[in-house]
């Protein structure tokens, strides 16, 4: 069966510091991968998605970037964190061959920028 791992679970970082959140998927090949952010008390906003290695699409302009160095690895990064980057970040995957495939989410990372 497929599983998705996301780490770390929580992170506290000072303003101006770098960020790296990692997500890996097991049990499937060539998944579509996504990064979502959930601000406090609000719904989820799509940040990035990827349909293959090295292929990244950004949905909103921001201080963050994403990379996909391997088929089942998706990384969210920042060179210098802002206070507004605080939130709950969720990685998700879906099957590439099924446009009806629902998204399967990881457990999320709670990021607090101080």
């Amino acid at each position: 069966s497929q599983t998705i791992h996301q780490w770390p679970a929580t992170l506290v970082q000072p303003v101006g510091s770098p960020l790296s959140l990692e997500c890996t998927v097991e049990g499937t090949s060539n998944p579509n991968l996504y990064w979502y952010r959930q601000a406090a008390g609000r719904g989820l906003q799509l940040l990035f998605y990827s349909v293959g290695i090295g292929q990244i699409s950004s949905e909103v302009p921001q201080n963050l970037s994403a990379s996909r160095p391997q088929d089942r690895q998706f990384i969210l990064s920042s060179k210098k964190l802002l206070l507004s980057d605080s939130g709950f970040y969720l990685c998700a995957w879906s099957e590439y061959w099924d446009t009806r495939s629902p998204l399967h989410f990881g457990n999320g990372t709670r990021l607090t920028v101080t």
Partner: protein
Amino acid sequence: AQTVTQSQPEMSVQEAETVTLSCTYDTSENNYYLFWYKQPPSRQMILVIRQEAYKQQNATENRFSVNFQKAAKSFSLKISDSQLGDTAMYFCAFMNEGGTSYGKLTFGQGTILTVHP
């Protein structure tokens, strides 16, 4: 662009009773998919139920069912025989079919459901 609206920020229900969560959406597309996700206190997003827009029959998953009204662009979730474990935030979500937008979800603001013993 699609929008999804959940007009009930919070709902509560007694254990074993039935509750309905509302969701409306706006789109000019004809083919799309609708989802309800559950986010318990553990924060993991869990898929509850899915509905294809081309299907007239309402989706059902055990105690969870939807009332899909395509013309009214309404997609409500009914939870029967509510259980304490149903306490969570529930999100309605929309996904276009095909093209470059497949796999990308647009979420509503969420409804916090509390089940009381």
